[in-house]
């Protein structure tokens, strides 16, 4: 069974780059062997991944009360619609909803890193940077292990 990692985010919005940073770090740690997509403003790539078979791990920054840098695992149902930093108002919830409505059967695992500053042009916070490194290491270990069908 294939496992695909999708990192979501925007390089221009501070902690919102977390998903991209994790994806790039995992690419390095796995020597380019893992199937990794970076999805910035356009969630079409995520929809395409969810329409395939296998498993999809999505990493994104999370905006919610709590400690910055905390790593969360989420159900797709926990992702709220509406507020996104991405283009054309298609957020993660909409992308998942479209893929499911079209019969996409890929198993979806959501990993979030709680961010603090999502302002345009803001640098990534230290807590989130450290969390990206920890999560990337954990995912790289996971991807190196054969997945049971």
């Amino acid at each position, binding site marked *: 069974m294939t496992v695909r990692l999708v990192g979501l985010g*925007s*390089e*221009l919005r501070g902690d919102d780059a977390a998903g991209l940073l994790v994806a790039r770090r995992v690419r390095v740690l796995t020597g380019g062997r893992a199937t990794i997509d970076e*999805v*910035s*403003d*356009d969630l*079409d*790539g995520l*929809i*395409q991944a969810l*329409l395939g078979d296998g498993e999809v791990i999505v990493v994104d920054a999370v905006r919610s009360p709590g400690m910055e840098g905390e790593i969360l695992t989420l159900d797709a149902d926990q992702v709220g619609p*509406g*507020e996104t930093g*991405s*283009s*054309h*108002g*298609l957020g993660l919830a*909409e992308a998942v*909803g*479209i893929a499911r*409505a*079209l*019969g996409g059967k890929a198993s979806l695992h959501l990993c979030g890193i709680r961010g603090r500053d999502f*302002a*345009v*042009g803001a640098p990534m916070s230290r807590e989130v940077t450290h969390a990206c490194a920890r999560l990337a290491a954990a995912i790289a270990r996971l991807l190196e292990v054969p997945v049971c069908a």
Partner: protein
Amino acid sequence: MNDRTERIHVGALARVEGEGALNVRVRDGSVEDVRLEIYEPPRFFEGLLRGRSYLEPVDITARICGICPVAYQMSAALAIEDACGVTVEGPIRELRRLIYWGEWIESHALHIYLLHAPDFLGCDGAVELARSHPDLVRSGLQLKKAGNAILELVGGRPVHPVNLCVGGFYRAPTRTELRSLLDPLEKARKTALATVRWTAALDFPDLRIDAELVSLATADEYPLLDGRIRSTGGLDIPVSAFGRNFTEEQSAYSTALWSSHRGQPYLVGPLARFTLGHARLSGDVQAEARAAGLQGGCRNPFQSIVVRALEVMEACTQALRIIEAYQEPDPPHLEVPPRAGIGHGASEAPRGLLYHRYRIDAVGRIEEAVIVPPTPQNQRVIEGDVRWVVESGLDLGHEQLAWRCEQAIRNHDPCISCATHYLRLEVDS
């Protein structure tokens, strides 16, 4: 609505790119005020570029927008090359047109299918549309994928392509690599044709925009990359005269600058391109336009969904033609030595005319940058459309009227993130 003051407030517009809100005030049955409020933080790109190398705007301005980066890269490159006295022609220009057509395909497909179609098919959004019309949404995703494939192969990646530079490209794809796009593009063209036909059958409110329509124009190509600036009001000027003919001003309630021509609002984008350039579409696309009832142009913003579908069909046709005739440019880019001066560049982003101007010094440092995206140029016309919707829909319930107002804005596929960058910042304290 009755004889008292009513307010329609849409706090966050749905299915548009970026963050904006709408406020409408109606008093005693008359529309007093319509404000499209852009509250996305300004991007300061024009200020950011000052002091940078003349080779950098192609990469930096691509970050202004995630859905139309190629448009920024093209207008930036054209302006820099103009300043340095270099003209790109031949196979490099054809490769530029190919990647630009790819962007039109993916941007228009996203808008037609996931953002605009729900309005016409009674759906709240793309998820509901995927449930009620799954084959339609699959078609849209297939079209988008074909457009993204062009960007990825020619540009290096589908978002913020990295292979474009001043003078052309860092690497030109081989003929074999490009021919791998033929099959998906043939399928995309068939889907685009089907898109024209089903959108042409939709019901459209009868609205006519009387504002002047403005687009690029050349003698023998549908407006895309360079040319002169023409309008339905008789304007025919070189791109270098843009600043003398179009003015920008700050709005009190928006972080986007507003544009006018001779003090009046004007419209850029698919309706303008189609009305001014329809005779330069491919023959079969022209035939489909006539079959759709759009001969001679289109001034109904609700029918922009049909015009975008025609443009996708044209983009697929031209992309196939370019690939079939492709000669690998060698070298992949021209050398562009820096030269002190001012350069102007314009191209047709999916949403309309996108103008760049740069002043650079003798060693290639940028001293001044001006970027005028399409959406702020259209903002006043968009507000006028909303005013018409409210005036003609005062007997509707509040919720339905608010939705109609949002639809009127979505007709124009505004790119709010592109719109909000400017240099002047005044702080009252």
